[in-house]
């Protein structure tokens, strides 16, 4: 027990524990702000390590995290699945998976940035340009924006027609050469590489042409509608 007079043998005692505790907490709090750079540096070591240990399929070494908002993840049934295009269009569309695959096929390689800080480099997306879908539906002059509705309700998000026409924006049905896996939005997801990932709606099943863009799922929670990487969300 501590006493005013310490026994002789305890003279070497030093109160180091509290300093260590404060030091670790301070280092951790620093990581909150410098975490992006530290994560990229450590990733160069941990990623090859996990790949060599055969953990690549379990631990999210490739960088992907799977975020969902509903209690169940949509399941793709090729027999019943349809992509509908409606709203301010001359002709509403209801496309089967085969119909979508028959549209002109495009491919692009881009980095995927999540707003929470993780990045997946060099993702190969294959799919269709949005304009190649829209030209069959013929949007009216009043249509200024597109609302992408996910079958994972209530997730949705909006792009202006100008944003949707950017050359690297597409509705993807393949990820890295394979059909988009369920957790990445099978069978069809939006990809807009210049914006944070929450704009790239997964499980797209409906596109509505509208005259006034509306806030998407995360925008209703304070995130920016124009989610340009490095130029939005307080960056």
């Amino acid at each position: 027990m501590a006493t005013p007079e310490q026994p002789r043998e305890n003279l070497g005692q030093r109160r180091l524990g509290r300093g260590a505790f404060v030091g670790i907490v301070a280092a951790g709090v620093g990581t909150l702000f410098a975490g992006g750079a530290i994560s990229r540096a450590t990733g160069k070591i941990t990623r090859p390590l996990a790949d060599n240990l055969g953990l690549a399929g379990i631990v999210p070494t490739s960088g992907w995290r799977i975020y969902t908002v509903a209690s169940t993840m949509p399941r793709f049934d090729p027999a019943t699945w349809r992509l509908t295009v409606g709203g301010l269009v001359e002709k509403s569309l209801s496309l089967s998976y085969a119909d979508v695959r028959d549209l002109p096929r495009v491919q692009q390689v881009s980095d995927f940035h999540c707003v929470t800080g993780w990045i997946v480099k060099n993702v190969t997306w294959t799919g269709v340009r949005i304009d190649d879908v829209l030209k069959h539906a013929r949007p009216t002059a009043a249509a200024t924006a597109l609302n992408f509705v996910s079958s994972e309700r209530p997730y949705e998000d909006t792009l202006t027609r100008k944003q949707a026409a950017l050359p690297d924006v597409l509705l993807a049905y393949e990820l890295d050469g394979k059909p988009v896996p369920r957790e990445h939005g099978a069978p069809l997801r939006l990809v807009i590489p210049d914006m944070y990932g929450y704009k790239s709606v997964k499980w797209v099943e409906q596109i509505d042409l509208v005259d006034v863009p509306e806030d998407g799922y995360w925008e209703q929670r304070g995130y920016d509608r124009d989610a340009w990487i490095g130029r939005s969300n307080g960056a």
Partner: protein
Amino acid sequence: MSSATGSATGSATGPAAGHLPGATPTLQPPAPVASAAVGPRYVRRFTRTERSLHWVHAAAFFVLLGSGLVLYLPPLSSAVGRRPFVKDVHWWTAVAWAAAMILVAVLGNRRAVARTAREVDTFDADDARFLRGNLNAPQGRFNAGQKVNVILTAAFAVLFAVSGALLWLGERDHAFRLAGTVFLHDALMYVSLVVLVGHLYLAVIYPRTRHAMRGITLGMVREDWAREHHAKWVAELDAEAAERDR
């Protein structure tokens, strides 16, 4: 009272001094237990408050680890689904953990908690030798490795709570979204997992140390075991007993 105890402790450390610097180079043999014939004697290592804190923390950690891995690992996330529910389990377990830890510490034996904190805070020359690999350096109620474990666990608990709260807030308002929150929360998990594996090995498997499990579950440990692993602490107990006998 305090001055009397102080002088008594000072003089009573006479016999205990044999366990201290002079004896250490010669791998101090465990003292024979006088009452071995009537079964082992036990000494109280942890109060009910300390044990409660340990098990509240441990139980919450396992629930948080399990639910956290479901949220984190893509194969598990896909297999389990129900992400909002798993998030709720994770979040409310953390809230319950914090509340329970505070309640136990405040309503329990605060002196015991303060004493543990003081012991964990204090490192001496023997602790330094222990950490450098001389496991025969005489140790107090906590050996130096256990002190490091407590400090790490406490600091990590604070950082887990801070980064977890920021993740929760960041989903509701992007002003709380910081560049490294996800990285910090994940990195803490990985390091904690390594520390946990070592902790479980020493607590459950390694024969020389696993008797410590009795102390953290029932409170008491065998005196001869304590004398071997925590010589300075038993010397303190001897001194207190001598003081009482006086």
